[in-house]
């Protein structure tokens, strides 16, 4: 090199393949990590974030190219690299059957922290992470946020010069996430370089610099504002329209001048391809909005997928004027031993509405969900779906609902076509309609080229499409979606919501869980679930309004969540373990 670079990590034409003929997980990457700042490693699942971090730790070797950490090639001098770094893998790397203090001691020994320094360092880290009260508790009994802090403390024992954090914010409650962020930010003031990988695009905005990855390729490197600025002047908050918001959005997304758009409470958020608005927007109220990282990411990828849902067009119309609610939960409570996973959950969803359960992992969303599909028996309370009492008519209720489980729950060894056929059979379609529906799903979700592939080997986005196709095979009038878009790229997410919006327009009722704060705004009403309880219920606009203050004139959904947690007084120390 001609001039000494301040970079702590230098990545040079790095390619990584798994298997000799596999597609590159990382494709000809060039990047630098600078000291004293947080570098965001941003992208959907499968983009190559974890692979890049592992390459920086020296635990993986590049197929081509080099990674140098503090001038040490990771291939030849892995030991020297590992002396200098702190690394927190996705699941925090904690021994769940060891206590907080035992975990700290183990990693202190492994990292060679001198014995005489330990009391001071431990005390400081425990204060820093606010874990001092829990030193004797087993790591497995900590809440998600506390585990994450302990994982961070273990990575910080011997002050690293480079801190690698692999998705530290996933599924953790928003308060813990913000605390973690400010802890890490303090570290950068001491000159430590931090790499923070995330699939949350709002986290990217807070980083000093980002590396945006998609399908193994580096789409953008630089300050996030530079990418966000790409759509400046083209983002608008649109209200005052005639008709139903989802219908209006679907129409607008078909306009060639509209690049991207989503529901935001009772309004729409649109990204235009040019600064002057198209004619269709005449008569609507357009307020310029601050562009977001996600807007520009979608724009960079060529804009959203349009607003037409062929799936919805091929779904029969369900009467929306039925006065009976589609889904009803009354005092649903579920205990596991002495741990209350869900307490007194009550809500009802009218026909043709999207209802969201929003909350961190382990809050009780999935438990509530499983009770409402009849997969889990409530300890107390009752649930009704499509008018059927789940205790007495569970089978009838299940026939009317489509269920898309969290993570991939199809048969990985069956091919795409076999999965479709199997689910059509399970839902009791006769031979003719089975053939018709599977052919239709294959066309709608563009699964034809993959029909013979094992479902396991599909990329995440396609897996999610297949899962949705299987769950709507029998034209259910109630749809249960458990974290349907977790980790998928924003284009697939848009496509997904276009289908959901279209189905809702047809009168389908949807219950969805999410930990994406902005996704909550696509719902008509949401319930905030925190530590097993519903701490607030209302429309996204109402909930945001309730958090409005002089300090926060325009709160985000996350601000609202945090304010509501504080208000409910539930932000003390959790009792018992966590169950998701």
């Amino acid at each position, binding site marked *: 090199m001609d001039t000494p670079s301040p970079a702590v990590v230098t990545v040079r034409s790095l390619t990584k393949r798994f298997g000799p003929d596999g597609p590159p997980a990382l494709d000809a990457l060039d990047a630098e990590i600078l000291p004293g700042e947080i570098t965001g490693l941003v992208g959907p699942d499968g983009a190559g974030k974890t692979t890049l971090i592992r390459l920086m730790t020296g635990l993986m070797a590049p197929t081509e190219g080099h990674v140098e950490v503090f001038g040490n090639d990771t291939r030849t001098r*892995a030991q020297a690299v*590992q002396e200098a770094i702190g690394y927190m893998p*996705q699941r*925090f*790397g904690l021994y769940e059957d060891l206590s907080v203090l*035992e975990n700290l001691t183990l990693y202190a*020994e492994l990292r*060679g922290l001198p014995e005489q320094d330990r009391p001071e360092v431990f005390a400081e880290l425990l204060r820093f992470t606010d874990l001092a009260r829990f030193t004797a508790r087993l790591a497995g009994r900590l809440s998600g946020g506390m585990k994450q802090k302990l994982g961070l403390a273990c990575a910080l024992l011997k002050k690293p010069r480079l801190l690698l954090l692999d998705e530290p914010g996933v599924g953790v409650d928003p308060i813990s996430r913000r605390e973690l962020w400010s802890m890490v930010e303090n570290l950068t003031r001491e000159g430590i370089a931090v790499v923070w990988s995330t699939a949350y695009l709002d986290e990217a905005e807070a980083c000093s610099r980002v590396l945006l990855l998609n399908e193994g390729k580096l789409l953008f490197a630089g300050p996030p504002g530079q990418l966000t600025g790409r759509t400046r002047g083209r983002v608008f908050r649109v209200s005052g329209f005639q008709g139903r918001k989802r219908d209006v959005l679907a129409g607008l997304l078909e306009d060639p001048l509209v690049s991207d758009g989503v529901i935001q409470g009772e309004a729409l958020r649109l990204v235009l391809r040019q600064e002057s608005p198209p004619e269709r927007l005449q008569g609507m109220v357009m307020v310029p909005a601050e562009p977001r990282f996600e807007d520009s990411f979608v724009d960079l990828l060529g804009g959203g997928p349009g607003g037409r849902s062929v799936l919805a067009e091929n779904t029969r119309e369900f009467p929306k004027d039925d006065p009976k609610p589609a889904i009803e939960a009354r005092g649903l409570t579920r205990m596991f031993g002495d741990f209350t996973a869900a307490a007194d959950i009550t809500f009802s969803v009218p026909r043709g509405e999207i209802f969201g359960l929003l909350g961190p992992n382990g809050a009780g969303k999935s438990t509530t969900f499983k009770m409402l599909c009849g997969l889990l028996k409530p300890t107390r309370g009752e649930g009704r779906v499509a008018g059927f009492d789940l205790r007495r008519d569970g089978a009838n209720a299940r026939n009317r609902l489509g269920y898309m489980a969290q993570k991939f729950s199809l048969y990985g060894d069956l091919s795409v076509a076999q999965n479709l056929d199997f689910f059509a059979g399970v839902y009791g379609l006769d031979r003719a309609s089975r053939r018709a529906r599977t052919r239709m799903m294959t066309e709608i979700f563009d699964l034809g080229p993959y029909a013979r592939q094992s479902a396991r080997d599909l990329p995440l986005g396609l897996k999610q499409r297949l899962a949705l196709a299987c769950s709507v095979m029998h034209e259910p009038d109630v749809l249960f979606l458990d974290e349907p878009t977790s980790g998928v790229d924003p284009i697939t997410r848009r496509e997904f919501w276009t289908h959901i919006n279209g189905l809702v327009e047809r009168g389908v009722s949807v219950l969805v869980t999410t930990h994406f704060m902005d996704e909550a705004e696509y719902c008509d009403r949401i319930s905030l679930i925190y530590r097993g309880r519903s701490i607030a219920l209302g429309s996204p606009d109402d909930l945001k309004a309730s958090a409005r203050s002089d300090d926060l004139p325009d709160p985000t959904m996350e601000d609202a969540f945090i304010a509501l947690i504080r208000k409910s007084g539930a932000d003390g120390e959790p009792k018992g373990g966590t169950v998701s």
Partner: protein
Amino acid sequence: MRLRDSLRRIRALVRKETRQILRDPSSILIAFILPILLLFLFGYGVSLDTKNVRVGLVVESPSPVTASLAGAFRGTPYFQVSEGRDRREFEDSLMRGHLRGIVVVPKMFTEDLAAGRRAAVQVLTDGTDPNTAKFVQAYTEGTVALWLAGQGSGAVQAPAGLTVEQRFWFNPELASRFFLVPGAIAIVLTLVGTLLTSLVVAREWERGTMEAMMATPVSALEIVIGKLVPYFILGLASVTLCLVLATLVFQVPFRGSFFALYLLAAVFLLPSLGLGLLISSLTKNQFLASQIALLSGFLPAFLLSGFLFQIGSMPVAIRFLTAVVPARHLVPSLSSVFLAGDIWPMYLEAIAILALMGAVLLTVSVRMTRKRID
């Protein structure tokens, strides 16, 4: 200084592993509960059939002489006798498997005996279970012969072909237990060394702790040693448990030395642990690791070690195959530690072979446990 760092890291890993073993019910289960179950199974279960075998005794024409003979049948611990007058009463039970055999004392028995003619007793057995059938036959002969001798009348001659004392010297019931219980120790050591070790390493991969640990300055060799030491000690603890049970509960003699037993066990643990580590670093998945450990460790130790089945009576190809089964080299030495006393030339040969196997497997597994996750 570097060695001191290394030793410190190994100590930390061993301490961590020990805590996990003590807190994890599955380790305790495999290392202590399973051995107890196995020993009881081989100590009692396998030999149970040879005691209290249910037979029907048909006395067609009762007399004081036949009553005395029936008493002899009732008195032996090997039979549990139901008595009757006609064999047809028992035929159904024999076919259903409720009885293992029918002993018929014919009408002419008393007269023949008194007349000094050859008095015959008929034995009907279930031929579908040849072992038990032979057993019933042999014990009937033995019981009759013993009864005849007890009659003390010189006038009565033992029927030809009966050798009274030999039958009781060669006591299959006792011999099987004496042989099976020491042999079970080889199985137990395979369970701890191969199955348990492969499970705990695979678990670290599954839970992501292996990745976090590898990103620290710890070396692959240190990780391996940190795993080996605790399970090595755990294996020796299981041996102690087996020794106590074998000698106190099953009354197996212990004619060799403790030193020999522990030396043999320690050397045997090397290939067992090596195989366990190799499996887990190849699969990184608990389910797969346990399946492979059972197939490559447990089953060969069970079937091909000479513990249950005589190696001499196996087909030649299989006999050669047993040479690579570590347990096959341990079992003869183990039985001699218990039953015969120390035979050092035999031990040394076994130790040399096991140490060689251990060295090969451990070297390969250390190589495989590179600090790499791709």
